[in-house]
């Protein structure tokens, strides 16, 4: 097949392209997107994807709130986000068209299945009249195909029911799009064969539809709009690659961390909540890697079980989203008081309260760093990309076990579902930081601190002659027994603070992600905004602006050189998907007049949001 794609000299070249597949929940847009992604990857292009499921579990067909979409940004260079604006919109029905049209570039291409634009669907989508018949789409390139019929024809030989045939429409569309960008179909054909191994007829029909879509592009006498493109390969480090979502990154990173620490078992205790549940689901099938998952009765029980597991010498991990993390607050205090290693993963979503559960936000930073009763410091980390989720998870395990402290990892609803290519590390190249449980009774007391780290010893119940009692009441610095002594409390409060502050000496110095280490403007971000900021700064720099990108992965404690780094710029701008939280912490720490660029729409930053803000300043 490969030949067919090369055989067309007149293909234009595009550095990168943004496609959104949109249709009814039942139209299979998610698989269509994933398969397109895979072919993109196999062809050596870079990509960034983001699915957009409906908020409702299963909305009535044809309704606007039932629209399911999948966006992919792919190309040779500059692919750092799923893309601000869409180049090609595939709209399988009228609802998809209304919902998604806003994001289509003026002059962009929209491909529709004309058959789906019938009376019933139009009314459901709220169209008074058919937008394909008037000039309401004048500003776009509209490609109207009767995909329903074309698919039906292509699968006829396989004698499917019309319902079954209808379900092949997405493959036809996929075939067409693969042709448009000169990609192969082989991997998709394999996948279909595997997926429908038990129903070869269905497999063959889908393959037929796929090929028909492709052939349609190849052969159909061209409307001037249906053009083929080539997209250059990405310059990436050689190696074996795969697609990774933030959820997979965290799950695999935790397993990698477990092994790096040489801990036998991970007890992951969670209570379902959007968008955190995915992590529970992913880990639930990793039992063979030493993972025990526990679905608790609520979030308090979940963190309680994780803490109990940590007390017993396992890696204790719990995960939730804002409202559920809030419920864990009291137990986090106990983890801090008893100085046990515990990992808490927060997949942030829009709030307050239930808010918009399916929308992403970065608004739990205050809660993570400061949101507890009393002086209760702990470590807070935030991954920057789906791939970084893997590394951050490992780092969280390292810090938790080395410093005997709870660690909060701030992910979000965007990272949870987004996906990017990932160069697969081999376990041999991963860090190693074996823990050593205390076994020697000589001079033991449970709060005896390591001079360097101030960490207390980790003892596994079951160890002879180390029997001891710990709890939430203040403990004597020297004996570990309950103590109400005023000076001891001051000393312990300071020790807890110093221990966390000390982590700063055990983490990398803050680096500059892009640009000079000094200048007019530093754009400082954290978490999932990495791609958007990076790209925006790159654009601004290409425009000759004096701006740099600094991305903070360690939010408590901050890297020890952060003040110096920031003070080398005249201005500091802090884009956050919240109403201004990191900016406050920076101001409080360093008295730097950092300015906030808040975005609280529940949607990730668009590159242009940030680029515009930069242009206003430099």
């Amino acid at each position: 097949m490969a030949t067919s794609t090369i055989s067309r000299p007149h293909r234009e070249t595009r550095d990168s392209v943004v496609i959104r597949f949109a249709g009814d929940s039942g139209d299979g847009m998610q698989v269509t997107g994933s398969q397109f992604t895979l072919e993109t990857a196999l062809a050596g292009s870079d990509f960034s994807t983001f699915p957009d499921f409906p908020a409702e579990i299963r909305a009535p067909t044809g309704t606007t709130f039932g629209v399911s979409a999948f966006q992919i940004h792919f190309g040779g260079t500059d692919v750092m986000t799923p893309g601000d604006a869409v180049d090609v919109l595939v709209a399988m029905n009228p609802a998809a068209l209304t919902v998604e049209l806003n994001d289509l570039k003026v002059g962009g291409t929209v491909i529709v299945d004309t058959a789906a634009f019938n009376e019933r669907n139009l009314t459901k989508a709220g169209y008074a009249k058919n937008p394909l018949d008037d000039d309401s789409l004048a500003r776009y390139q509209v490609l109207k195909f009767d995909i329903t019929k074309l698919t039906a024809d292509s699968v006829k030989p396989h004698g499917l029911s019309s319902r079954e045939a209808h379900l092949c429409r997405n493959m036809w569309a996929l075939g067409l799009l693969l042709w448009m960008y000169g990609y192969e179909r082989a991997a998709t054909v394999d996948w279909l064969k595997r997926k429908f191994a038990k129903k070869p007829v269905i497999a063959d029909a889908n393959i037929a539809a796929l090929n028909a879509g492709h052939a349609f592009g190849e052969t159909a006498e061209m409307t001037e709009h249906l053009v083929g493109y080539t997209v250059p390969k990405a310059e990436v480090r050689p190696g074996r690659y795969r697609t990774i979502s933030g959820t997979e990154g965290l799950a695999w990173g935790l397993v990698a961390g477990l092994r790096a620490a040489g801990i036998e078992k991970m007890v992951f205790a969670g209570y379902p909540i959007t968008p955190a549940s995915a992590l529970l689901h992913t880990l639930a099938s990793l039992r063979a890697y030493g993972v025990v998952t526990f679905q608790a009765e609520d979030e308090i029980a979940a963190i309680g079980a994780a803490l109990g597991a940590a007390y017993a010498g396992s890696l204790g991990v719990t995960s939730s989203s804002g409202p559920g993390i809030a419920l864990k607050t009291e137990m986090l205090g106990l983890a801090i008081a008893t100085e046990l290693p515990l990992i808490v993963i927060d997949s942030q979503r829009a709030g307050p309260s239930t808010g918009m559960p399916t929308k992403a936000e970065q608004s739990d930073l205050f809660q993570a760093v400061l949101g507890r009763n009393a002086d209760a410091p702990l470590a807070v980390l935030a991954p920057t990309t789906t791939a970084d989720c893997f590394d951050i998870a490992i780092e969280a395990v390292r810090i938790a076990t080395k410093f005997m402290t709870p660690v909060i990892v701030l992910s979000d609803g965007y990272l949870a579902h987004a996906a990017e290519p990932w160069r697969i590390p081999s376990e041999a190249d991963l860090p190693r930081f074996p823990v050593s449980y205390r076994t020697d009774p000589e001079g033991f007391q449970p709060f005896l601190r390591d001079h360097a780290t101030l960490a207390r010893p980790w003892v596994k119940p079951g160890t002879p002659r180390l029997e001891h009692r710990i709890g939430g009441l203040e403990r004597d610095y020297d004996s570990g027994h309950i103590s109400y002594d005023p000076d001891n409390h001051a000393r312990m409060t300071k020790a807890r603070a110093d221990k966390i502050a000390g982590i700063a000496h055990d983490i990398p110095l803050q680096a500059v992600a892009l640009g000079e280490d000094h200048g007019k403007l530093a754009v400082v971000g954290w978490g999932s905004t990495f791609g958007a900021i990076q790209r925006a700064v790159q654009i601004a720099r290409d425009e000759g602006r004096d701006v740099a990108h600094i991305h903070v992965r360690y939010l408590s404690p901050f890297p020890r050189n952060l003040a110096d780094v920031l003070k080398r710029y005249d201005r500091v701008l802090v884009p956050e998907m919240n109403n201004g939280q990191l900016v406050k912490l920076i101001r409080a720490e360093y008295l730097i007049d950092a300015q906030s660029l808040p975005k609280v729409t529940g949607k990730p930053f668009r590159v242009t949001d940030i680029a515009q803000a930069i242009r206003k300043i430099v």
Partner: protein
Amino acid sequence: MTVTTITDAQLAPKDYASDQEVRWCPGCGDYAILKAVQKACAEMQLQRERTVFVSGIGCAARFPYYMSTYGFHTVHGRAPAIATGIKLANPELDVWVMTGDGDGLSIGGNHMLHVLRRNVDLNIVLFNNEIYGLTKGQYSPTSRRGTRSPSTPFGSIENPVSACAFALGAGARFVARSIDTQQAHLVGVLKRAHAHRGASFVEILQNCVVFNDGVFDPITGKEVAGEAQVLVEHGKPLVFGKTKDKALRLKPGTLALEVVAATAADVLVHDETNRPLAQLLAALEPPLPTAMGVLYCNPMESYEHDVYAQRGAVPAKTDLDALLNSERTWEVGGGE
């Protein structure tokens, strides 16, 4: 910190005591419970290093500090959740949950429900003094109606929950009741609870001398005990009375228990595997005798046993690379 030296010699009750000064009020029923637990430990020769006492917050919850085993004094009401995590991490450990009527049935009621339902292999001991001791005497969910307390100066108007009835409703498979002052009986019940795999729930009527003194006297008082208690034993007739002259039977054709002469033909024989009977016994209240002993015991595999049995199916994988390379991957050669 205590470094308890292990000798081959038998461990005596005192060997289960930590070096910490016991800080309950003089005369508190908790002392008797501590004594009974240490005695039971010695009689069972529990290994201190394998034993963990977990508690929430309350006077009762101070318990772990006084044992020479491992101990975790956690937060109010959550001990069952923490204990579940401990068992998931290491099913080999012998884990006890020491809780109070407020800790276990007020703030902690939900965790109690689920740990019993899941049947996690824990020995749960609930010190029921029908009051919040540590916070200085407010009424609790087990306090009788009319209880005057700092938060109910005019008397409580809430219906108390019955600890054992609740536990049975939650699906508990071992439910027993005893009394702080009846050492022999209490030690026996604790040993039964420990022998039971899965969650064992033991309610102990405990006297709070400061805030609820004598609330159990009508049941536990030396002179009335014989008439006011029926000590249930599996397979034995449900007789009671100072001279064991009375007994319980099923009122014919009904679902109610009634008192008859011990000599009666149809005296009910205790079957601790019979849940409806356990529910009737748990619900007994004056003028009928209060049921003491193992009301219900009907073992099944514990939660963590099944967790590991299910895991057992899966062979442990040692190869992380296999995991990371699962599903579709692709090779990128040197850049063009």
